[in-house]
């Protein structure tokens, strides 16, 4: 038994050319003009851009432990609605993903749900405490085949532990994804340190707390000859450090979140906790530097840092609120709004920063490939002409802590195809039972 074949008619490829795409089973079997198929369901893609399915290297799925915020099912539904066909699930769950057991559980939940390929990220240190290395090898050798390790949410602050981790993961070609935040410089920090924090009386999170850790870690990566990835760059100074490191030949990659490409710290003036995030929203100068760096390749990828929180963690005073924003459903629209509409990058670059490079960094061979016959069908169709005031109805996440509610964004995902079947169809999420049944068909081969 196989899933229905799909024929996409008249889509615009990332390079600007138009083509039909035939999907049979899990594979793309033909790309070209005038394709036809008697059995395939046809999708009219006139005016739509087709991209390789998006890959998010930085997602918090919250399961196990925080199922009131998100589950693997709801998180991957949010991913599918946002055009993602793979997400890398961060390790700060309860229990922490620091053993083979936890990462295998997350892998299994993702496979069952069937909305996207879930790749668990392993913790660098036991319990994210920064003291003792987690069982990195066991996680790498587990069924989850973990290759990305991160204590995200916390910084691997001890330079010796960081050095050891960078060296150790070379055993299995892993990468350390660092949450760069000097803890002593950010005690009780609530928002970007600057003019707004001074006025609002909120403890500052200075740019130097991020930049100093990045500087330290690129030098450690150089010294150990290891691969380093920096999560959520947020300052112009961090961009300078990465640019310098790359010029020097250091094996470092960097990511930026959609919200750091759009929002600035003056949003905090409302004390609306939807804008509370870590690293914090920065100044307009930082936003401009990040956009420029993403355009020129200094920053390699966009990753969402999708961080769901229940309403009680946000509908409260700023100091008591949790850090984080949901972002999977809005990521592509924010990138189109900030980078494509401004003329900084084209759709081929969007494919690169949201699919090809994150797949490569994460070691995910099935995703982020050039659209051609013979590859696994991981695709997203985007309508770039849509303009909408982003609303709660645009969210599939269990949590609604989106900073974009009420903000106009350009572009909308029309369809998402994962393993050859639709997870989002006609701008609407495909039902969970349909998706899981199709996933089961694929799993049985």
């Amino acid at each position: 038994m196989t899933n229905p074949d799909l024929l996409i008619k008249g889509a615009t490829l990332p390079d600007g050319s138009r083509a039909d795409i035939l999907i049979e089973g899990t594979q793309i079997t033909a790309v070209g003009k005038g394709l036809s198929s008697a059995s395939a369901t046809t999708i009219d893609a006139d005016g739509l851009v087709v991209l390789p399915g998006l890959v998010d290297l930085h997602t918090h799925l919250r399961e196990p432990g925080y199922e009131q915020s998100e589950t693997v099912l709801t998180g991957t539904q949010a991913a599918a609605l946002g055009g993602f066909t793979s997400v890398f699930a961060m390790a700060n769950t309860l229990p922490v993903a620091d053993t083979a057991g936890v990462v295998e559980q997350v892998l299994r939940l993702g496979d069952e749900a069937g909305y996207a390929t879930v790749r668990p990220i392993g913790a660098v240190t036991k319990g994210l405490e920064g003291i003792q290395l987690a069982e990195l090898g066991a996680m790498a050798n587990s069924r989850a085949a973990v290759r990305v390790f991160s204590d995200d949410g916390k910084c691997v602050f001890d330079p010796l532990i960081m050095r050891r981790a960078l060296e150790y993961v070379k055993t299995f070609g892993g990468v350390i994804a660092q949450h760069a935040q000097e803890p002593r410089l950010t005690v009780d920090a609530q928002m970007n340190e600057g003019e707004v924090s001074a006025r609002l009386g909120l403890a500052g999170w200075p740019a130097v707390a991020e930049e100093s850790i990045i500087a330290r870690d690129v030098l450690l990566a150089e010294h150990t000859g290891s691969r380093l990835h920096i999560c959520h760059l947020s300052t112009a100074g961090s961009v300078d450090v990465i640019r310098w490191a790359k010029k020097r030949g250091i094996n470092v990659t960097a990511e930026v979140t959609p919200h750091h490409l759009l929002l600035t710290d003056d949003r905090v003036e409302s004390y609306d906790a939807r804008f509370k995030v870590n690293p914090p929203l920065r100044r307009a100068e930082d936003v401009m530097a990040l956009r420029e760096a993403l355009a020129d390749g200094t920053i390699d990828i966009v990753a969402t840092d999708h961080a769901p929180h229940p309403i009680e963690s946000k509908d409260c005073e700023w100091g008591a609120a949790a850090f984080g924003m949901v972002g999977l459903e809005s990521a592509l629209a924010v990138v189109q709004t900030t980078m494509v509409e401004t003329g900084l990058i084209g759709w081929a670059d969007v494919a690169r920063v949201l699919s090809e490079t994150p797949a490569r960094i994460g070691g995910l061979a099935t995703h982020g490939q050039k659209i051609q016959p013979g590859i696994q069908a991981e695709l997203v169709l985007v309508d770039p002409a849509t303009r909408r005031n982003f609303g709660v109805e645009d969210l599939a996440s269990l949590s609604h802590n989106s900073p974009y509610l009420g903000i106009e964004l350009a572009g909308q995902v029309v369809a998402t195809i994962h393993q050859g079947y639709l997870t989002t169809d006609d701008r609407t999420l495909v039902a969970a039972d349909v998706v899981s049944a199709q996933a089961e068909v694929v799993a049985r081969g």
Partner: protein
Amino acid sequence: MKHLLSTRDVTREEAIQLLDIAEDMSAVNDREVKKLPALRGKTVVNLFFEDSTRTRISFEAAEKRLSADVINFAAKGSSVSKGESLKDTTQTLAAMGVDAVVIRHGASGAPQVLAQSGWIDVPVINAGDGTHEHPTQAFLDAFTMRKRLHGAGSRGKGLDGVKVNIVGDILHSRVARSNVWLLQTLGAEVQLVAPPTLLPHAVNTWPVSVSFDLDDALAQSKPDVVMMLRIQQERMHDAFFPNEREYSNMWGLTQERFYSLPAKTMVMHPGPMNRGLEISSAAADSPQSTVLEQVANGVSVRMAALYMVLTGEREVTHD
């Protein structure tokens, strides 16, 4: 005025109106019957998530002198310490039917969140939030300055050209923030004097001048007012300055510094004072000190603030 959350939101016209009304309120505090019927039948809740007996008592006196019914809600020993949220507490009070909330909270912005939340639709007065603002303190300070400078002729006047030095922990001070904005609105020239560790990172964006050297500042600016801020105990051990003795020597209003001031210079302190640390007893107990006037004026200013937010036509909102 719908709420009093920050002195930044207050126009010069509103500020002077509030100070003028406070003048008339202060006359009431001197007479036999210290009560006005303006807020009869209104219920005001003093919602204090942080201990502050002084501020709470001052608001309570103001509310009672305007004939309001007063509910005091202190977080300690209440359901808040059992994990009840600001939202739940406020909604509970709304269900009981209160007409205004005076809130003191440890989190910066909590009064604004409350005012915007829709949890309760009544006027909100900020009685101090985190390290953000303490607007009624700034008003009582401005009132005290104006009264000392202009006496019975204070009505209608601002503080144009008055030189004010605010000295001490600006970084963590809600009093300093509220004073900076209000004094600027009223036309005063403000200079902040503090060690660089106790100044906000972006203080250069504020409408003030800044000095690190108290002796220099006092000699150069010849201030009409020197306002000393309290050094909180918890700052002592967090490397903001080496120790109390050095702080006092460099930024305290020591007896020697005090005696070098012109006789007309006002010495202010929001209280409670650390005598011997930021202020010497010679300064605190001198005729130039306004410390006790500030306390008395606090009641008048809070009466004026309550009157201004509670009276007037209110839009009735229905959900």
